[in-house]
């Protein structure tokens, strides 16, 4: 489902003397349907960078990232947007909220975007918000005013609303209480069971052991470190 070959990444800081920072070289990764792969490595090793490149949020310097047949490295913006809408979900660490949109609609939106009927989408959104213990009285409010933890749970509900065939999860269980953490882990297990290919970053070791099938230490892709 996700096939990465010979991927490299550099950052050129033009306004800091043009310094070039190579962060990744010859990265390879293959994730099959129903499989969850954990990215590991020290802080700054490039876990988030790799994940952002898969999502098309960071530009690769060279190599290919094929997700469901689309090479994200060379795809046009509209092809990447279509891939994100239909195939590739991403639960980032922070919810980026659109002003004024009620929580229920924030969560239902990915379903509406793929043509699911409004009431069906809202039912699914209600179900997810309830599972993630967001009090019903908040559903009609914009999440802008919510606490950090509440926003994160809304973000997770939104990320799991559509049954994406491929998913990227950046620290989905960070700073959740035990009950909510359990819910997120079950959501991940359900996604795997229906065949989703998942790439995750988990600092929570127990969570990683429970849901991930393999670990990839991204440090092996750090230039100058790998053999």
């Amino acid at each position, binding site marked *: 489902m996700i096939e990465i070959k010979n991927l490299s990444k550099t*950052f*050129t*800081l*033009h*306004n800091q003397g043009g310094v070039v920072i190579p962060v990744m070289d010859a990265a390879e990764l293959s994730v099959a349907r129903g499989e969850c792969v954990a990215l590991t490595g020290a802080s700054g090793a490039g876990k988030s960078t790799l994940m*952002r490149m898969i999502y*098309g*949020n*960071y*530009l690769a310097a060279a190599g290919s990232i094929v997700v469901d047949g689309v090479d994200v490295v060379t795809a046009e*913006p*509209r092809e*990447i*947007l279509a891939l994100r809408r239909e195939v590739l979900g991403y639960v980032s660490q922070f919810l*980026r909220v*659109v*002003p*004024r*949109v009620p929580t229920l609609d924030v969560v239902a939106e990915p379903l509406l975007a793929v043509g699911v009927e409004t009431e069906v989408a809202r039912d699914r959104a209600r179900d997810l918000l309830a599972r993630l213990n967001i009090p019903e009285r908040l559903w009609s409010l914009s999440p802008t005013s919510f606490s950090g933890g509440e926003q994160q749970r809304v973000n997770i509900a939104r990320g799991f609303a559509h049954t994406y065939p491929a998913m990227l999860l950046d620290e989905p269980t960070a700073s959740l209480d035990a009950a909510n953490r359990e819910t997120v882990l079950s959501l991940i297990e359900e996604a795997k069971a229906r065949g989703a290919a998942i790439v995750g970053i988990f600092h929570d070791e127990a969570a990683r052991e429970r849901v991930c099938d393999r670990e990839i230490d991204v440090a092996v892709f750090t230039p100058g470190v790998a053999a």
Partner: protein
Amino acid sequence: MTPLLKVENISKFYGHRIGCKDVNFDLYPGEVMGIVGESGSGKSTLLNCLAGHLDPDTGEVLFEMRDGAMRDTVTMSEPERRMLSRTDWAFVHQHARDGLRMNVSAGGNVGERLMAVGARHYGNIREEAVDWLGRVEISETRVDDRPTQFSGGMQQRLQIARNLVTGPRLVFMDEPTGGLDVSVQARLLDLLRGLVREMGLSAIIVTHDLAVVRLLADRLMVMKDSHVVETGLTDQVLDDPQHAYTQLLVSSVLQV
């Protein structure tokens, strides 16, 4: 899918001064493209060349007509271009007074556009005008008021209603939220976002506000000194800018 708009090698000179130079891009149906860049970088010049308000010195602006044919709007006759700007294009100006008739009622401002494309039945026109005022959150009780009696945000919403009532396929916007305070901006953006999605519009939106493009635009084009220096998926350009100028632009804003 075929592009709605194909822009090829557009340049515009003001005497020795360059307005914009060698601009190329394709816009597909339903796509929203943002244009950002510093003051004087050529954004408005480009937009006006695309919308037929300025005559470019080089290049073609190919637009897909309703019959599917691609026509160069630069070389088509003035009456044909004027017809397109009434039916298929909309232009939302930064200053509402440039896009509205200030001495005509709100309902009249919207109805006038319908009449320009052939609507004649007074009752239907008024009904549609009221419906559109509602969609941009202007109460029916204000339908007979003039834009001069409206706040800046309301004027801008009225301008949007006036422009979208005829069901255009391509919307040009030059700083549509400029000069409005932040909460009014947010409301206007949310409205625009909804309308663009609902109507499947394609749009080109010029702004200096990166938060606006993050919210509205699928793609981004960055201009500096009359040239396009970077293009790409909006979040990619903002989060991993490649050009020195884009890096400066992004780093000089706190958080978008």
